[in-house]
């Protein structure tokens, strides 16, 4: 699968460098404007949809069929998109962590429970976005799956910011700390990501090309 991953990384670098530059810019802005959650969520959510963008390019150049002439199983052809998503989301999240950590050092506010809780919810959002979108794209293709794709993005952006602002309230009502709430969110999104991979493999194995 190394070859497939290399291909996708080459494509990400070539096709998505502008997107990556925007993401880096938004991450930097999030350092300055800490009140606006959009700048913190946006880079990770956008990063999580890069595998969908690469799938679109694969379809356009007929790699979806041609890729199957090489010694890869259909499971591997699907798995590489999840692996790519995981690598990109984690890399972006670590960048965000580094920036937030640097910011908290400067402002001497680091290490608080809410700080980590927030970052965990951001990571959960990234995994959730990939997990919800990839099976739709594998099933319907990028052309037909576009509408569902947009709906998922809007729901995830609205849901994450909403969940973040409600987390304190929910935690209070359930008598658990926001850290527990965030860990539960991460666990749930990880399970969804895993189930999404299983479903996508099944879809791809049954797909006729």
């Amino acid at each position, binding site marked *: 699968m190394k070859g497939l991953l290399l*291909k996708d990384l080459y494509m990400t670098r070539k096709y998505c460098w502008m997107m990556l530059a925007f993401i880096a810019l938004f991450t930097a802005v999030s350092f300055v404007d800490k009140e606006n959650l959009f700048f913190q969520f946006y880079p990770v959510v956008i990063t999580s949809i890069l595998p969908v963008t690469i799938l679109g390019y694969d379809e356009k150049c007929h790699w979806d*069929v041609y890729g199957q*002439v090489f*010694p890869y199983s259909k499971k591997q052809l699907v798995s590489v998109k999840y692996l790519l998503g995981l690598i990109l989301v984690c890399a972006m999240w670590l960048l965000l962590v580094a920036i937030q950590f640097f910011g908290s050092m400067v402002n001497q506010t680091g290490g608080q429970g809410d700080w980590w809780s927030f970052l965990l919810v951001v990571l959960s959002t990234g995994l959730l976005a990939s997990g919800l979108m990839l099976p739709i794209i594998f099933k319907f293709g990028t052309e037909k799956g576009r509408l569902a794709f947009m709906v998922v993005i809007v729901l995830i952006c609205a849901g994450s910011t909403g969940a973040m602002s409600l987390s304190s309230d929910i935690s209070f009502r359930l008598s658990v700390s926001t850290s527990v709430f965030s860990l539960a969110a991460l666990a749930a999104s990880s399970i969804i990501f895993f189930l999404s991979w299983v479903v996508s493999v099944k879809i791809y194995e049954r797909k006729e090309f």
Partner: protein
Amino acid sequence: MNAIEIKGLTKTYADFTLSNLNLTLPSGCIMGLVGENGAGKSTTIKLILDIIKKDSGTIKILGKDNQEDIKCTKEEIGVVLDEVGFPDCLTAIQFGKIMENTYQNWDNAVYGNLLKKLSMPGKKMFQEYSRGMKMKLGIAVALSHHPKLLILDEATNGLDPVARDEVVDMVCEFTRDENHAVLVSSHIVTDLEKICDYIAFLHRGKLILCEEKDVLLTEYGIVHCTFESIQEIAASAIIGKRETAFGVEAVVKRKDIPAGLDYSPVSIEELFVSMVKEVK
């Protein structure tokens, strides 16, 4: 050992059925799969490679059922489809690195030599290649991991005569090794006639003929005669005929025509067209 052995292969779509296909490609041979557009050539190749699922039948590649670890079998197959589906933004050098991490037997030296031989620019993006160059790159990739079987699906379509000739030369070079075999599909029959040992005619999802090329060329002929003379030939000996203002041109089985009747050699294309018209 046979390179490909297909028995009773069937695949049904809403508007098309590939039915009960039986085909054997011995090692060391080149087989041409001839058929009009939509005859089932690409469907057959996709079924061989397990890209689509068969309804029934068996397919063996290099002695192994294609349902048993096809991933491993694909290490020994080089494939070029009518659309070489490499990403547009990548270069030949990058494809080499991708394939180095794909095939266990990938040979960078072979790939480098082929790129040089074919005058392929290593750093040019795939989208800037002409169709001929794309095909040649596809073939270079297909040949650089020491495959035993080469499968080409409409690989010469849309190429200029010079590029087509280069592709044909590469295929011939590959089959110098007697353990190598090639399955090549095309509707440009003249290309296949140059290189194939076996010819298989597919028409509307059915195999109407599969025979050694030399046998076909010696078994069939073309008779140019008058309307009266054609009546002397048994109907069973006539594969197909075309009537003109000057007489009749008929593709016939040589051994079944009356002695003394002159005939000329038939081309594979003429034979195929006659057979298809007859089936219609």
